[in-house]
């Protein structure tokens, strides 16, 4: 008899795993992890440059994470990350002789660092859990504080899980050299987010998850470092997500497919589709590729080149992140278990292009970014 996914062993094992001793929802191990990553944007094309340097952004990130069970029913986690950023970013765009837009890069190279701290506590109940989390992130000109609450509940033998979460954050920006460059001196932003999701075990080897999210942002939403960037003072974002995971016995392969649809009050709509798999080779190394496609439409107030004739009361921005564009990213991850330590590494390449976006752009943004990321991690369980 050919073994199918729903063999008696698989069915019985799935039912057994629903028994409390196995479903230990409270983690019983302590985890300590560190990782480091380098993010590097490609240089701009000289022909697209009006002023400034072609070199763009480089970010080095270091992260530290620890989590542990506390008593019988609680667990806690703490993570700290530090980023050092250098390089320049676009100030604005202007119309070139042939009707295309060219980039004005900021002259000075930024050398900044960001520190972030996140802490969370979870309480586990019979079939549910509740988490509270606090976060802080600070750079010399930008500070953000957040608080979040989430709830998860299992139904029908843990075959179905409902997740609800809410979060609130306040951000403050005090742009550097504000007076010198005529920038706004201080801006504040408040965001509220809600998210609901449902996860369903379709079979002993397949899981489906769908979710909806709503985020409302109010306050100073413009980019103060751009020459001419004026955005509305409120933004409502909506998302729908779906993800599917499937497990195959062959080389213990896990397949994953994700989809996300986003639309907001700025007029931006976007879609993201990604697929990946992880498998374990006989040497004990797990590896897997990821492929992701992203496409967005432009914001209703997007201008392909800054138009200083427009009144300052009218929303306008030439930020490439609000233009119509699409992007492919592809990468590879690998993991290796050595005793209680897991080593991991990943490389990813991201390339965006005006031709891949959801709208037909009048003139594509010349500063669409391309970057590569390389990361290494170490995780220790004890």
């Amino acid at each position, binding site marked *: *008899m050919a073994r199918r996914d729903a063999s008696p062993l698989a*069915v019985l094992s799935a039912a057994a795993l629903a028994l409390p*001793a196995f479903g230990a929802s409270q983690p019983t191990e302590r985890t300590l992890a560190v*990782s480091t990553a380098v993010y590097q944007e490609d240089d701009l094309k000289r022909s697209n440059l009006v002023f400034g340097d072609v070199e763009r952004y480089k970010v080095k*990130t270091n992260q530290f994470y620890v989590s542990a069970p506390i008593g019988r029913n609680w667990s806690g986690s703490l993570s700290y990350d530090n980023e050092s950023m250098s390089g320049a970013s676009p100030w604005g765009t202007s119309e070139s002789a042939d009707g295309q837009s060219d980039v004005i890069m900021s002259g000075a190279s930024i050398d900044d660092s960001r520190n972030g701290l996140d802490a969370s506590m979870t309480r586990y109940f019979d079939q549910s859990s509740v988490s509270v989390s606090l976060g802080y992130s600070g750079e010399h000109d930008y500070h953000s504080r957040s608080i979040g609450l989430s709830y998860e509940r299992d139904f029908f033998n843990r075959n179905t899980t409902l997740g609800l979460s809410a979060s609130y954050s306040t951000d403050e920006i005090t742009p550097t050299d504000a007076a010198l460059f005529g920038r706004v001196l201080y801006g504040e932003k408040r965001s509220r987010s809600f998210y609901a999701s449902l996860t369903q075990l379709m079979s002993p080897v397949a899981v489906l998850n769908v979710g909806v999210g709503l985020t409302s942002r109010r306050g100073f939403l413009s980019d103060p470092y751009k020459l001419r960037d004026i955005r509305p003072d409120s933004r409502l974002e909506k998302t729908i997500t779906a993800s599917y995971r499937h*497990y195959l016995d062959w080389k213990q392969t896990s397949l994953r497919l994700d989809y996300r649809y986003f639309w907001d009050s700025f007029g931006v709509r976007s879609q993201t589709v990604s697929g990946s798999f992880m498998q374990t080779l006989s040497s004990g190394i797990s590896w897997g590729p990821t492929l992701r496609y992203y496409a967005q439409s432009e914001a209703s107030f997007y201008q392909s080149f800054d138009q200083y004739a427009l009144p300052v009361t009218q929303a306008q921005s030439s930020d490439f992140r609000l233009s119509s564009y699409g992007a492919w990213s592809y990468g590879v991850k690998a993991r290796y278990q050595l005793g209680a330590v897991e080593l991991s590494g*990943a490389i990813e390449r991201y390339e965006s292009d005006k031709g891949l976006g959801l709208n037909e752009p009048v003139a594509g943004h010349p500063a669409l970014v391309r970057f590569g990321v390389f990361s290494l991690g170490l995780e220790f369980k004890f």
Partner: protein
Amino acid sequence: MGSPCSIKIAGSYQHAKSVSDACISEARRFEAVYSRYTNDSIVAQINTAAGLKPVRIDAECRAILNYAGVCFNLSGGLFDVTAGVLRRIWSRARTRKPTEEELAPILSLIDFNQVEITDDTVFLPRSGMEIDLGGVVKEYAADALAQLVKNHGVDSAVINLGGDIFCVGARGAEEGWHIGIVDPKGGGAAAAVQLVNSGLATSGGYERFLEIEGQQYSHILDPRTGFPVNSLASVSVIAEQTVVAGSAATIALLKGEEEGLKWLEDFGCPYLAIDQGGQMVTGVGFNSGARGLEYVGEPLKGPLNEQRTGFFDVKVSQ
């Protein structure tokens, strides 16, 4: 539990003592909660309320009942936790073979499909119906105690609850825990296995026979007819959970000799079956070694291996 139990824990005496004390408490809890004999066990409450009203149950009890339901479906109705009422017919006091008339009213009380289970209650609709979770709970307790010792940081232990065994980790760096499977005809071990992070359960029908009018009747009963099954004498199964191994072994017994062997082969886990004549049949990994039948285990993986997603994602603004 009724049969000899032992716990072997690798580690310092102090630590092993405190962990085994925790295990003994937990084993006693299982017994107190799921026993048919004590008055305030949840099973006794459910059975007393049969035909009267639903009884509140917790998540663990519901998960055990649902697991029993899966066994019921997989076995085509043979594995039925409501079949315990047949004890009333096949008791030690019996001197004559039961008749259809005697069996009929008892058989009408046997049907797991009729048990009403909701998220937090269970109801036996007919007065006289009973559930018996002893079999499932004994095997599950081995897994639960294994998880308990693991939670206490023990990575090498053997839990043996009357023949339902779970081996945590391995005995040493190179070898698994050595467990012998008893030969039913007496005379030592039928097979030697080395287990690593696995459960081993043995179900037997030969030890408890009822002799009536010169005939031997096994205590493995078909819940649909009420009569004993012409079953294998003993079945041992090795699986990632002792409860899964135990259910597979029990279902093999309930299916009778021929169907039982077919079920074991299709199930796909290593097994050793001994028929009433003493013949041994093995499969899926059991070999003929120098000292007779043996099985050497490697760490087994389950069907759904959650791949952890890294929490480290480099933040990229989009």
